[in-house]
């Protein structure tokens, strides 16, 4: 399957908004390689907007889901999955729905040689208790939530979600290469130390697949994610029909 062409980040947000603008009756998903850097703020980050330094080349967007700011760009692969409310993978609450996607992303990353895992709520509690790492909670990749994806103790995949009457939208970001964390911190008026912390708290696919160009990593992940999501949703949809 050919990889999708890189797109402006605004197109992803438009797809997400349109996915929940009407009742979701069938699962739909799409991977997002990005043309250019952009900052995507979580829906409760209005206060950050006042501190944003003007950047001619950097688009600032807001998303409907919660969580911290994300610096999208050629170093990241985004993913959107829209589900009907009654779909089996969406049952059992929001945290359980994250499990399905987080474990799927970890399996896909393992297939390209990235030994990833999705952190359970219990493992997350233990991680927080033993960790001396700072939390940069204004940034998605500066903190951890249940079933987000790590390699060792460093985050590689972030998740967020929207649950409405019309359906459920899951979104994910997977780090292909190291993002320009300083650009994110500078633009949001955060200390340079936070950029350093984000670098320490995260990892990316290129660290484990140094011979593979970033666009090939994105293409391979897209292909594998399509297979993973299609297989999971087909099996679960069959269960739904049989119920």
């Amino acid at each position, binding site marked *: 399957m050919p990889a999708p062409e890189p797109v402006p980040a605004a197109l992803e947000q438009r797809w997400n908004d349109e996915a929940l603008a009407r009742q979701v009756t069938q699962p739909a998903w799409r991977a997002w390689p990005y043309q250019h850097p952009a900052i995507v703020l979580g829906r409760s980050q209005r206060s950050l907007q006042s501190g944003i330094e003007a950047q001619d080349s950097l688009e600032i967007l807001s998303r409907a889901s*919660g969580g911290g700011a994300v610096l999208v760009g050629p170093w990241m692969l985004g993913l959107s999955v829209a589900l009907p409310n009654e779909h089996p993978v969406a049952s*059992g*609450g*929001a*945290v359980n729905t994250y499990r399905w996607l987080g474990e799927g992303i970890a399996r896909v990353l393992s297939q390209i040689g990235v030994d990833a895992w999705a952190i359970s709520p219990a493992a997350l509690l233990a991680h927080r208790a033993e960790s001396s790492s700072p939390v940069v909670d204004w940034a998605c990749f500066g903190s951890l*939530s249940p079933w987000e994806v790590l390699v060792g103790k460093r985050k590689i995949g972030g998740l967020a*979600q929207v*649950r409405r*009457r019309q359906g459920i939208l899951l979104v994910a970001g997977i780090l292909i290469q190291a993002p320009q964390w300083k650009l994110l911190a500078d633009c949001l008026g955060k200390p340079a130390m936070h950029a350093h912390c984000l670098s320490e708290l995260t990892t990316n696919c290129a660290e484990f697949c140094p011979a593979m160009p970033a666009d090939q990593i994105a293409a391979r992940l897209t292909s594998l994610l399509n297979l993973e999501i299609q297989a999971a949703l087909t099996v679960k949809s069959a269960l739904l029909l049989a119920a």
Partner: protein
Amino acid sequence: MINVALVDDAWKDVDAGVEALLDTWQVREGDAVKQGQTLAVVVLVKTSFDITAPVDGIIERILVAKEDTFKRGQALARLKASG
């Protein structure tokens, strides 16, 4: 009088002590609302949830202000059912 709250299912597997954030109110006290109408949007564990009216009625009291946090089971508003 009906208490409007975030559904229990939303809190499943969420650590005790974690609170949700009231992101926005889409109605004001005294507004007439229809069953299923979105009243507010809240955020819990990076998930935004629409809070909808369980029945037709009037928003009598908003109990949690925008940008405040709230606990599991806490009422967000009181709704007086119509009829």
